C-alpha cells in the first residue's frame, strides 16, 4: 500500500546544481515517474523532466535511478525498499539543460551522418519480397526506442567528451548492423562504420546490452557481427578479391 517515499532529485542547470531532498506520498503499483510527477504537481511545479507515453514505448524518460541508467516509467517502486531513499539524476553522458533534462542533440547529429537505406529495384510486379527469417534480424534492432541509455552508459563517451566526434555509439552501431543485414539494401557501410563511426573503439564490454529496456542484444547480435563483417572485408585477401569480382550482395561502398 501507499507510503511516504524519500527522494533526492538533481535540480539545476548547465552552470550549477544539487541533489534536492523531497518526501512524496506514493501508491501501490507506481513507478519512479509517478513519484516525479506527483512531486511536480504538488511541490516542484517547474521541475523539468521529459516523458511521453509512460509505457516504455517512446524512450523519453531516461535518467539514472540510484546511479543506474533506466526508463523512469518502467522502474517500479517495488524494486526498492520503502525505507530506501531513491536518487534520480539526469543522464551523465549528455550536457544538462535543466533538472532531469539533457541535451541529447549528439544523437540526432550522429543520425544525420548515417547514409540512408537505398533499396534496389522492386520485383517486376512492383512488390518487394523478403522472407520472415530474413527480416527478423533487422526487426530486433528496430525495436530500439531511442532512449539513448546505451549511449549514456557507453564508457567510450561517458566520461570522454573528446571521443564524441569520432564515435557514433551503440545506438548507431545497431542501425549500421540493421542496414547491413537488410535484405534489400544496396549500400556497403562497413568501412564507414569502422572509420567514421568508430566501431573499432568499442571493446564489447556489453554495458549497452545490459541497460537496454527493449532487451536488444546490442553487443552479441549487432556489434560483434558488424565487427566480423568489417574484418572479413579488410583482412581476408580472398574475400577482398571476391568482393571486387562478385560484388558482395551487389552493395556499393559509401
Amino acid at each position, binding site marked *: 500500500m501507499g507510503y511516504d517515499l524519500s527522494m533526492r532529485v538533481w535540480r539545476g542547470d548547465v552552470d550549477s546544481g544539487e541533489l534536492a531532498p523531497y518526501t512524496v506520498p506514493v501508491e*501501490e503499483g507506481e513507478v519512479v515517474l*509517478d513519484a516525479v510527477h506527483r512531486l*511536480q504537481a504538488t511541490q516542484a511545479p517547474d*521541475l523539468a523532466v521529459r516523458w*511521453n*507515453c*509512460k509505457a516504455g514505448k517512446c*524512450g523519453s524518460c531516461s535518467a539514472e535511478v540510484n546511479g543506474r541508467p533506466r526508463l523512469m516509467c518502467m522502474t517500479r517502486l517495488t524494486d526498492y525498499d520503502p525505507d530506501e531513499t531513491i536518487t534520480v539524476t539526469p543522464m551523465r553522458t549528455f550536457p544538462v539543460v535543466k533538472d532531469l*533534462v539533457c541535451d541529447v542533440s549528439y544523437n540526432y547529429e550522429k543520425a544525420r551522418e548515417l547514409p*540512408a537505406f537505398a533499396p534496389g529495384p522492386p520485383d517486376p510486379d512492383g512488390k518487394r519480397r523478403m522472407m520472415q527469417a530474413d527480416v527478423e534480424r533487422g526487426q530486433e534492432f528496430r525495436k530500439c526506442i531511442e532512449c539513448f541509455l546505451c549511449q549514456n552508459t557507453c564508457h567510450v563517451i561517458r566520461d570522454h567528451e573528446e571521443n564524441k566526434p569520432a564515435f557514433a555509439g551503440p545506438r548507431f552501431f545497431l542501425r549500421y548492423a540493421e542496414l547491413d543485414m537488410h535484405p534489400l539494401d544496396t549500400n556497403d557501410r562497413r568501412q564507414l562504420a569502422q572509420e567514421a563511426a568508430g566501431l573499432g573503439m568499442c571493446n564489447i564490454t556489453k554495458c549497452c546490452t545490459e541497460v537496454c529496456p527493449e532487451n536488444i542484444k546490442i553487443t552479441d547480435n549487432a556489434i560483434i557481427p558488424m565487427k566480423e563483417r568489417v574484418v572479413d572485408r579488410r583482412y581476408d585477401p580472398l574475400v577482398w578479391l571476391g568482393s571486387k569480382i562478385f560484388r558482395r550482395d551487389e552493395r556499393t561502398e559509401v
Partner: protein
Amino acid sequence: MAEFERHSYDVVVIGAGGAGLRAAIAAHDAGARTAIICKSLLGKAHTVMAEGGAAAAMGNLWPDDSWRVHFRDTMRGGKMLNNWRMAQLHAQEAPERVLELEEWGALFDRTPDGLISQRDFGGHRYARLAHVGDRTGLEMIRTLQQRAVALGIDVFMECTVTEVLTDDGAVAGAFGYWRESGRFIVFETPSIVLATGGIGKVYEVTSNSWEYTGDGHALGLRAGAPLINMEFVQFHPTGMVWPPSVRGILVTESVRGDGGVLKNSEGERFMFNYIPDFFKAETADTEEEADGWYDDKKNNRRPPELLPRDEVARAINSEIKAGRGSPHGGVFLDIASRRSPEFIQRRLPSMYHQFKELADVDITAEPMEIGPTCHYVMGGVEVDADTGASAVTGLYAAGEVSGGMHGSNRLGGNSLSDLLVFGRRAGLNAAYYAGRLSESRPQVSERDVTAAGKAALAPFSDAGRVDENPYTLQKDLQATMQRLVGIIRTREELTQALVELETLKERAKHIQVEGHRQYNPGWHLALDLANMLLVAECVATAALEREESRGGHTRDDFPLPSEDWGSKNLVLTEKDGVVSLKHQPLQTMPGELQQLFEEE
C-alpha cells in the same frame, strides 16, 4: 520585433507524428522549403504508441479484398457519417502508401511468400493490417523520421506553436516558443499543415500521452477554421485498469484480432449478448462459428469481439455496471487459454512485456484485466477531402486533428493509413499553394506577434487574486470530462459539464506559474490548458446538441440512432472566446458508391 528569432519557409508542419512527417516529406518532395515543428523530441510523437497496424486492402492474404470492401467497412464502422470522399481516397491509396514505407526501409512482418503480412482487426472484413508484431507505430515513425532526416528537412524540436498568425484571413505565419530556453520564435510562412493529433488528455483515463492537448484543434479554431464531429470521441475497449498508475494504457486490439476473447466475472464470453442489428448479418452468433472464422472466413462470420470499438466499449461498460466486472473494475481479456505461449510472445511481444513489467501479469498464463480508455477523437478541423485544406486559406490539417474521415467511429488500423494518405495529400497541396503565391505572400503583423508574446507570458504575471496551480486545474478538467462527458452521456450531465467548464475557464485566468522560462513544465501546461479547455467545450457543446446515439457518442436519454441526425454534421466555430454551433448536411455519396451498401 527584431528581438525574436525569425525563420521563413514555404511550408511549416506542426507536429511530427505520422501525419506531420508524411506531410513534410511530401511538401519537400514538391519542392517547398519545409520545416517541422514538434513539442517533443523527434521520434517521440504519439504514433509511436500505435500497436496493431495500418489497414490497407493489399489483398496479400485474402485476394478478394479490394478498396471497395475497405471503403464499405470504413463507412459502416463510422455509421455512415464519414466524409465519403475521404473514406474512398483512403481505401484507394492506403496500399500504395504502405508499400512506400518499404521503399524507405520499413520491415513489416511477412507472409509465407515474402509479401507484407496482414492481420485481422475489428470491423474489417478481411485480414488487412500491415504490421510489425504489436509495435507497428514505432516502425512507422522511425521509417518516416529516418526518411525526413535523409532528405535534410529542418526540424524544430521541443518547440511549441502557441498561435497561427493570419493576414486578412490567410495564413501568414506561426508564433511559438523554444522549450529549452523559453525564448520566442516566429515563422513566416504562407502554408501551415496542422498535424498535432488528438485531445485525449482532457480525460482522466486515456491512452494518450501528455502532448495530446488539442493544440491543432484550438489553433485552427482560433484562426477561423471550423471543427466538425467533435461529439465523437473513441473510447478504446481495452485499456489497462490495474495498477492505478497504468490505468488507461492501451492494450492492442490485436489481442482480439489474434484470437483473444472477452469474459466477465462469471466466465461468460459476453459479447454474444451485445450484437447490434446493424451488424447481425455479418457477426457469428455461436462460439463455434466465431472460432472457425480465424481460418475460414468464407464459411464463418466474424467473432463479436471484433465488432467496431464503440460497440465493444459500450458492452464492457454495461457488464461492469451490471456487477459482472473483474476485481479492479474491468473485465477479462483472455488469450492465454486460446493460443500457445510461443504464438503470444511472437505476435504480441510488447503486450507481454508491458503486462509483465508493469502489472506482474503473464499474459501467456492468465487473463488480462481491461476496461475502456479514451483513445481517439473522430472530430477535428473540417477539411477538403482531396487537398486537406481547411476553410482558412493556407491552413491544412491531416491525421487525428482533421475531421470527417472516420465519421462517428474509427476502425482500428484506419488511423495509421489515414496519417499516410492524408499527410501526403496535405503536404503536397500546402506546397502547391505556396508555389502559386509567388511574391505576394501574406505578411505577419507586428501587432499580432506582440499580442501572441504577451498572451504566452500571461501565466507569469501576478494576477493579484487567488493563484491557480496548472496541475490542479488540469486534474479538475479531466475529472469533469471523465464524469460528465464520458462514454455514456445525458442532457443533465452535459449541461452540468458546460457549467463546470465555465468555472474552469474563469479559474484558468488566474493561473500562476512558478520559476523562470527555461524548460518549465508548469508554464507549458498553462499554455496547453487554454487549448484543452477550448476543445473540451467543443466536445461537450456538440454532445449536448446531438440527440441520438451513434458511434462514439452515446446518449442514455436518446439511446438509438435517428435518421435525421444521420444526415448531418455539427460544425463548431469560435469568435472572441465564444463557441457557436450549426447543423450542416452531409455530402451526398455518388450512386456507384451507394450501390456498395445496397448489395447487402
